[in-house]
């Protein structure tokens, strides 16, 4: 099994939903894999924090603001900037990392929360909306704070919006068919994809700082 396969099962494991054989195999893997063990510890922490959070509705739709800024964005040449590209100062990187961590935590809470459900329930869709909206806002701050190449910012923003759109599709589908296990899983995996994209951006900025 790959690390990805193991970590995909952590949420069910922590919720006590794995069968005994799989749980034992996972525990054996965790005993010998520091990376997966760290992910499990993070999930425990995030899950505990998530349970303590109030459920808040999204304040407003972010897309109109993103769309207007995309329309207005100027294309800035990448090469002439002395300190351009994906370079970040350490203080800003630290701040961005902190924000990203918070955002990822929120999104991960949503991911683990949804991923652990397999029964017919009505999902509170605003939880994903809040988490991912916060993540988008944080990413925008990261991107804007260092004036990244506008072309790359646009690509990342558009793709985050694509993922948001997919999440919205899944939320609507789930509202129409609350017992659809596939759609609930799809919603969770799409939210996870958003977190992965944010991590990708953070990794790129970190590696070049």
């Amino acid at each position: 099994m790959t690390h990805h396969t193991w970590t995909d099962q952590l949420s069910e494991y922590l919720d006590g939903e794995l069968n005994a054989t799989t749980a034992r195999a996972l525990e054996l893997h965790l005993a010998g894999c520091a990376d997966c063990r760290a992910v499990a510890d993070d999930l425990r922490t995030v899950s505990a924090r998530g349970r303590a959070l109030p459920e808040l509705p999204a304040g407003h739709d972010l897309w109109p603001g993103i769309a207007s800024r995309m329309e207005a964005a100027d294309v800035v040449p990448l090469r002439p900037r002395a300190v351009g590209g994906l370079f970040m100062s350490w203080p800003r990187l630290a701040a961005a990392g902190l924000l990203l961590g918070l955002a990822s935590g929120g999104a991960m809470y949503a991911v683990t929360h949804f991923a652990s459900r397999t029964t017919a329930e009505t999902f509170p869709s605003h939880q994903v909306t809040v988490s991912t909206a916060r993540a988008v806002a944080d990413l925008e701050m990261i991107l804007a704070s260092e004036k990244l190449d506008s072309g790359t910012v646009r690509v990342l923003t558009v793709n985050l919006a694509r993922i948001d759109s997919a999440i919205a599709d899944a939320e609507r589908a789930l509202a129409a068919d609350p017992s659809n296990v596939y759609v609930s899983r799809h919603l969770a995996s799409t939210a996870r994809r958003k977190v992965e994209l944010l991590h990708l951006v953070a990794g790129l900025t970190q590696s070049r700082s």
Partner: protein
Amino acid sequence: MLITSFLLAVTLHQGADTTLAVRKGQRLEVSVYAGSITVNIWNRDAVRVQADTRRKDHLDISADGSTISVETSGKWGPAGSAAIEITMPAWMAIELSGVETDLTVTGCKCTVHGETVRGDVTVKGGEGNVSMQSVEGSVTVTDVDGRVEAQSVNESVTVERVRGDLAVRTVNGDVSLAAITSGSVEASTVNGDITFDGAIQNGGRYELSTHQGDIAMTMPENANATVSVNTFNGSFESDYPVTLTGKNQRRKFSFTIGNGSARVDLESFGGDIRLARPGSGTARNKGTGEND
């Protein structure tokens, strides 16, 4: 010029052509802000670096016991476009990075890792673990024996003639997997099609998932697989006669081919899913009736 690479720090200028002796266990890191990095192999325990840089840019090479680093730098910041050609032993692990940089690696037999923002990535031949990603460029991996992780954000990912575990993803682009021999395949995109053509190994796991796009899987006649199909707005069609089980047989069901040993999950939220026999043509364009 041949120099040893065990403890080294040199700065070279335009038109550099340097060869460093290396020893087993050393790895190579190459960072080029813009341009290209091309890696080939030879049968010498040495690394040759050929650099075509702008006149005022530098090529910095440093080494310690474990790592050799090659990096371009400009006088006032990031270097301009540079073409860096690396020739190295096949056993050497390599890590490539860039921003506006195309990455091309041929024939390595060790760990290959690369990431770029606005360039294309190509890996041809070799063995070992390959992990490559681009944000705005395409990623292509062919003729590799080993585990492959390939990721883009805004372009397609193409993998052909690979033997080994596969993890492939993009957000906005197609995923094309051809002539694959693998017991573990994970492929996903948000906005794009996925095609798979390859062997289905007994006990293997194959997961293809897209949000807005079609899935076409070409499955060998002798495959043994339990196939799970999920779609919300799409449809399913199959060249194989299948008996469906599941509540909503139009969009959510499973069936068994052969003894059902492998697990195949095909999921498209808004697109069509097609299961084809080898040689039946371009599966995604074929329009025979649904199988429900």
